[in-house]
């Protein structure tokens, strides 16, 4: 279970540029779906990766299902050498995505995002349309479980739909 307040506050305190893209974004759009992690798309510049490492290091990130006893260093080099990561941390599961299927990189994610106010902070999250596109592209069984409600919300919120 992720402690959302700690995660989001630390990301804001360290000026990380990111867009919330997964289950938390789905919740912001009024779905009843319950996620267990925080997924976000991050800007892959050296500066932002430095901010990201500073923000998450206090929570001891380790790759999910990492073998016991095998050393791991969470630093700028690690993040520069990959794109998408799934981490377990002391405050819960956090997935870092440099690319989101169906949408693209951080610039594309930002262009497909809206701002919400949570914990007194401005947080960017995928639009409903972007969530539908990314979940359709991801095409996993868990995505097919949330898509009907997202499509229903889109129809309900569309002023042109009767």
């Amino acid at each position, binding site marked *: 279970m992720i402690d959302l307040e700690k995660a989001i506050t630390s990301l804001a305190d360290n000026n990380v540029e990111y867009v919330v893209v997964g289950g938390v974004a789905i919740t912001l759009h009024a779905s009843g779906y319950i996620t267990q992690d925080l997924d976000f798309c991050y800007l892959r510049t050296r500066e932002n990766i430095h901010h990201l490492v500073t923000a998450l290091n206090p929570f001891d990130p380790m790759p999910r299902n990492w073998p016991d006893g095998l050393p791991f260093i969470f630093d700028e080099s690690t993040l520069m050498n990959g794109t998408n990561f799934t981490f377990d941390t002391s405050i819960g599961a956090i997935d870092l995505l440099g690319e989101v299927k169906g949408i693209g990189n951080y610039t594309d994610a930002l262009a497909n995002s809206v701002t919400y106010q*949570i914990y007194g902070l401005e947080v960017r999250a995928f639009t409903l349309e972007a969530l539908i596109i990314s979940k359709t592209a991801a095409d996993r069984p868990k995505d097919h479980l949330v898509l009907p409600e997202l499509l229903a919300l889109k129809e*309900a919120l569309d002023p042109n739909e009767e």
Partner: protein
Amino acid sequence: MKRTPEEKLLNPKPGGKIAAARDFGIDLTLTVSQLRLSPQQRIDNLQSGMKFLAELAKARKLGPVEKVK
């Protein structure tokens, strides 16, 4: 007159995406409840739901307890 999102969710038009979600098994009354909340309240509910699921997972690991006779 245009219907509100709540009205559309609670009384979907046949053949639409809302009707498809209802037929899929989505409880749209819960979706309506979520729509009435602020984004912060939705996140607070999510965090509570996560805690509850974590407790359920703990209980599942422990297994059933003996009934007191």
